């Protein structure tokens, strides 16, 4: 419950909600560095299929992950309408390709329901809970799990 610990002072947390393939997800706003439009990425050899490649972020090399493909859904076909969420994950900065950013939410920890246990192990690994906001269901995502750390350590 590190999240809870971090947000004791404010009593709630701010989340950025985004849409991918008709579903809604959200991440902690503190881990988001910026949001920018899609630019063509340079493909990486021997990369997992959800790794779209790298782009130039003001002189730094930024890897881009197709969030939809990462979740095992249909791979995105990036257009100018797509959005890259630039996020800080541990010491690294990575980009997350999503369909659109939909909302900024302020929620109390109590509003976060635990992930239903019907979910498969895979989804449970990155889902930190679900939120019910105005009749919508938004899944809270743990970014650490989205990025392929396991592979990084193996290599």
């Amino acid at each position, binding site marked *: 419950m590190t999240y809870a610990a971090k947000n004791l002072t404010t009593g709630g947390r701010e989340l950025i909600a985004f849409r991918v393939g008709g579903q809604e997800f959200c991440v902690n706003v503190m881990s988001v560095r910026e949001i920018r439009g899609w*630019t*063509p*990425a*340079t*493909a*990486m*050899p*021997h*990369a997992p299929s959800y790794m779209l*490649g*790298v*782009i*130039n972020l003001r*002189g*730094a*090399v*930024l*890897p881009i992950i197709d969030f939809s493909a990462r979740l095992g859904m249909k791979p995105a076909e990036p257009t100018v309408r797509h959005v890259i969420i630039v996020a800080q994950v541990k010491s*690294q*900065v*990575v980009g997350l390709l999503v369909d659109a950013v939909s909302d900024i939410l302020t929620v109390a920890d109590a509003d976060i329901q635990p992930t239903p246990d019907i979910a498969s192990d895979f989804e449970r690994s990155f889902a930190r809970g679900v939120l019910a906001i105005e009749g919508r269901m938004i899944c809270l995502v743990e970014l650490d799990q989205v990025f392929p750390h396991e*592979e*990084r350590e*193996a*290599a």
Partner: protein
Amino acid sequence: MDMNEIKEIFFQECEEQLAELESGLLKLNDGDRDPETVNAVFRAVHSIKGGAGAFGLDDLVSFAHVFETTLDCVRSNRLEPNQDVLKVMLKSADVLADLTNAARDGGSVDAARSRQLIKELEALANGELPQAAVAEPVAKPAPVAAPTPAPVVNEEGFQPVAFSFDDFETNEPLAIEPSTFEILFRPKSELYAKGNDATLLLRDLSRLGEMSIHCDMDELPALASMNPEAAYFAWKISLKTDKGEEAIRSVFEFAEWDCELDVMLAGGDHAGAGEELPMQPVPFDLSMLDEEVPASPGAAEDDDQVAAQQREARDDAVSAAATASNVLQMAQTARASAESNRSAASASAAQAAAQQAASAATPTIRVDLDRVDRLINLVGELVINQAMLSQSVIENDTNGTSSINMGLEELQQLTREIQDSVMAIRAQPVKPVFQRMSRIVREIADMTGKSVRLVTEGENTEVDKTVIDKLAEPLTHMIRNAVDHGLETPEKRVAAGKNPEGTVRLTAKHRSGRIVIELADDGAGINREKVRQKAIDNDLIAADANLSDEEIDNLIFHAGFSTADKISDISGRGVGMDVVKRSIQALGGRINISSKPGHGSVFTMSLPLTLAVLDGMVVTVANQTLVVPLTAIVETLQPEASAIHSFGASQRLISIRNSFCPLVDVGRILNFRAIQANPVEGVALLVESEGGGQRALMVDAIQGQRQVVIKSLEANYTHVPGIAAATILGDGRVALILDVDAIVAASRGQSLKPEMLLAAAG
């Protein structure tokens, strides 16, 4: 400038002196008997001692002092710098370095070790041979029968003098009987400016024997005309001691050139006079007098001859030179001895001069590394920007002769020059790292009881400072491994018919725009059976895995792998070689091992010269833009259909001037396309790899040649096999820089992902 800054400068200088000391000792160890080398070593210790004294770093001073004394014996040919002696000295240099570090960063040093070395050094200074020397310091003082001084020294716990002066005594027949010296000590302002203190010198002097001091204040002008930074006092000292003149002079050794010092045996005999008396008729320089002795208008006549005669000399400029040798006896003796100190002790004076000359020839400044880094980053951005600008001008302006284009071209040249100059600032010889290694070899050899000689070659090979800094750690691991695991014990070596002393060879050289560092030992080589068994035990490979010798050798780079039977302090914790490999890879380098059972192992590391820029050929492969380091490319050619020969199921060879060279489809190896491209439609880049073999790399087209700024992929992503790094092209897009050697290795059938393969096999 506050004290801490000055102290920081002192420590920086210490580092240089320590490096100088070690390289000098190593030269001596290799049989160099050049007196200049000995002097350089002596000077290094001397400077450290001097600075340390000024900062009150007593431990450092006392150790340096003993060390220096022993070195002085070498300098004066009283001690033959043979292997045994040098062994002690090299260890002492290590302890001196430790003490310096401890003084800077706090922390403690192994006191027992330094005490032991002090003993050994003293023994060396006193006796002729390390073994015979142990008893001597005890035996000697007795016949000398010195009544007072020695015990006094010890009671005060003043360590620098705690060693025996026996070596002086044996060579100083004059000093056997306690005798009275008349000492005239007249500091110049420089003495104080350099942080010395006359009081301390006098206090040191008092430890030599019974002393009476008379302070001569006649030079002191009226308060109004007094220069607060000038020196006005002189001291006349009468010292009864059994030490020789040399001992007295050594008290003043840091002040030697900043004071007038005259040491005379009571009764007027100039002690140790032989060489110095003939120096008396040195022309008397009046201007010097005027400079150094401030005018003292109001001073009355006095009992001190010196001041009076000096004033006289000033009054009568014409006769001064003529009468110098008799009338100005006292003053002149002072001058003469100062002069003779400079000229008669020619060795040190000449060196000092040489040093000054050298430093005058190439003035240097110390610059904070951060500033250089910032500059390099800025220049990197400048290069990218310039490339982007060029590109947009070319896109918008088809008229190739416009002034904009010409201006751009000049800008390009300038940028390149700036970049080269900035890079040159960071280029440093690998020497300091190599020197550090010799210490590690010594220590490990001591711990393991092995006898090891480290041979270094090409230590002046220059490489970027960041590369050097990051090299030390992996190299340390490797050296430890080489000595601990690689070399056998002397007994085993003898049994194998080898020289009991093992050799570790560390070589650096430039090779096609990279620096190649080789670490070779002549030990037993890798025990493949043992490595294999260990890998099976650790579940790294399957028990029935079929591995080539090379693959087995490379297992040692796998995480958590160690074949040491017992875990030692030195290595064997299994964090060695995989850490080495990772840090080398992080530097954009590669590491290879080749091992011959019974003959030893060779580790070869290849590293980029700089981590900032690279000349590259921009090529297209399967619609991707890639950069191939220009240094790897031997030539480019357009293959004809007749030159392409199929070889087996999937291999193809290209004939170049009647020799056949394997054709490697870059797009296929990097998995950018599923089927091999038609070679005739592309371009072949003939590359030479570290392994020596040539390969023809197939790319679709060449876009051009460009200097690119290297951007790390690891920072935000991970190491990608076959890719060295990334860069940003003129259009703002990221392009990958090809790791030619890895591609070539992959084409030899090795997987681009050896670690993953292993994991799969296990």
